[in-house]
Every structure is written in structure tokens, then in C-alpha cells.
């Protein structure tokens, strides 16, 4: 199954988004939240993010979903074409779509495409 890492400035935001996505998308998706600095502050820790990538990597690829700013740059440091890819998507909505697609057995490209569809969902 494709793994997913949610990267945020805020540890809480990443964790809460992961919980919501897991609740909708099913519990079996390899999903990790990597938010905040190592000392629990606001920011990004590349060490945390790469540990999260290893944690969710089952060999089918990993999608990184960053929120903004340093999360995006940290994600870029870990990009590895065909294996670890960044989804440029709305954080919460893209995470839900990606987790659902991964849970449904989609390929790395399929999960990425599903996450990108979140740009086109309307809520009303």
C-alpha cells in the first residue's frame, strides 16, 4: 500500500488531520503525521519527516503532503522521483482524498491524482 506523510508546522495540526483522514479513509493505510520541531515547537524537523517516510514505506511509494512554508521545503529535500513524491494539494482535503485512495489500493500515481482532485471538490 502507498504510504502517506502529513507534514505541518504544527504537530497538532498534522496529528489531527491524520486522525480525521484515518477515520474516513480506513485504519489500515500506512499514514504518519510529522509536524512541529523536535522540541515540540512550531516548525519542521527533517529528521522527523524522514523517520516518518521510513515508517510508512511498504515499498509501494510514499506521498508527502505539506501544509505551507518550511513543510514544503522539507518535503522537497526528501523527494525521490517514483518513490517519494510531493502532493501539492489542500492540506486537510487532500489528505482525506489521498488516504482514501491509498486504502483502496491505488498506485503511487493514483494516490497523487486522487489527492489533486481535492482542488476541484466544492463543499456547498
Amino acid at each position, binding site marked *: 500500500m502507498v504510504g502517506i506523510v502529513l507534514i505541518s508546522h504544527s504537530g497538532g495540526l498534522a496529528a489531527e488531520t491524520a486522525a480525521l483522514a484515518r477515520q474516513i*479513509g480506513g485504519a489500515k493505510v500506512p499514514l504518519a503525521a510529522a509536524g512541529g520541531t523536535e522540541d515540540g515547537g512550531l516548525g519542521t524537523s527533517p529528521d522527523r519527516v524522514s523517520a516518518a517516510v521510513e515508517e510508512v514505506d511498504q515499498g509501494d511509494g510514499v506521498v508527502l503532503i505539506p501544509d505551507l512554508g518550511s513543510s514544503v521545503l522539507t518535503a522537497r529535500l526528501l523527494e525521490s522521483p517514483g518513490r517519494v513524491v510531493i502532493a501539492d494539494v489542500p492540506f486537510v482535503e487532500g489528505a482525506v*482524498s489521498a488516504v482514501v485512495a491509498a486504502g483502496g489500493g491505488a498506485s503511487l500515481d493514483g494516490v497523487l491524482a486522487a489527492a489533486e482532485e481535492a482542488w476541484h471538490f466544492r463543499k456547498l
Partner: protein
Amino acid sequence: MNTEFFAAWIEEITSAVRAGRDHLTELDAAIGDADHGTNLDRGFTAVGEALAAAPPGTPGALLVLTGTTLIRKVGGASGPLYGTAFREMGKAFGEATEISPAELSAGVDAALAGVRRLGSAAEGDKTMVDALAPAAAALSRAVRDGLKPEEALEAAATAAAGGARATVPLQARKGRASYLGPRSVGHEDPGAASTALVFGALRAAASR
């Protein structure tokens, strides 16, 4: 149908929801977040308390209080939706103390219109609308054809149950289940299933 009749309806719904709670929650586990049964059970329990605390004097007031309580207490999407449905039906009844079958049918139409307006779901989107819309249509036709009240309510209940079953092959296009895309196919929509219970309870109230 008087205030007592509608109070009996709410009681029948409450029992049906209690009995069906785990089934509804299982349906919601497949395409939602596994809380539809507990949501409605919590909501109708609160409705029972609210009605007992200040028993309303008309069918309209009873249904408005039911709806308002559901909105406040359910916690899930079905709260605003069922809440709006009961409120709209209650408002359609106005101050009347006795409701004719034609007025009941118009009330169900008002409920359907309210749910559609709030949730923007069309038939086929795999929501409670897929049970509510056929029930409203069946009731309307039965009244037009001059069926006896119990027969008319039987027709509505049958249509709601059929509508709920017919959601199984559909793909969800509204609510959180829509995020599941094709994965929502093959499961009955929990809100449609509970709407079938609501119309089953209406028939049961009539044969009390």
C-alpha cells in the same frame, strides 16, 4: 392525526433507532465514520426528554421541537438534515391540531424540500434523499388516489425501504462518503436506511 399521533410516531422512531442503532452504525462504518446509529440514538433520546419536559400542544409545535433538538444534539450531518426535515414539516402544519392525510403529505414534501435545500443532494447521490424522495412521492400519490391512511403510510414506508436498498449500487456524491468515490459503491447509505426506519415508524404509529 392529532398531537398524540405525532408523539406516538416519535416514540416509534426512538424505539426503531434504538433497536437498529448497531446496524446503522455498521452501515456507516463501511462508507462513513461509524456513528450514524449512535448519533440518532443520542438525538432521539434528547428529543424524548425535551418533549417530556415541555409537552407541545400541537403537531406543528411537537415536530418543530423535535427538529430543533435533533439539530442541537445529533452531532453528525444527519442532525441538521433530520432537524430541518422535522422543523419544516412542523412549520407546514402551522397551528392546526388535527392533520389530514393531504396535510401530512404536504408536510413530508416540505421536509424533503428542506433537506434538499440544506444538503444540495439530488436523488441518486446516495443520501437520505434517496429514501425520502420516493416516500414523499408514494404518499402523495396514495392520498391523491384516496387510499386509506394506513394504506397510504404503508406505501410510503415501502417506498422508503426500496429507496434505501436502491442506494447500494450508487456512488456517493454528497457528504463525507463522497470522499470515498468508487469505494462507496456496494454499501447501503446509512441515512437512507434510517429514513426507511422513520417511515416504518409512521406506519407503526398509525396501526397502534
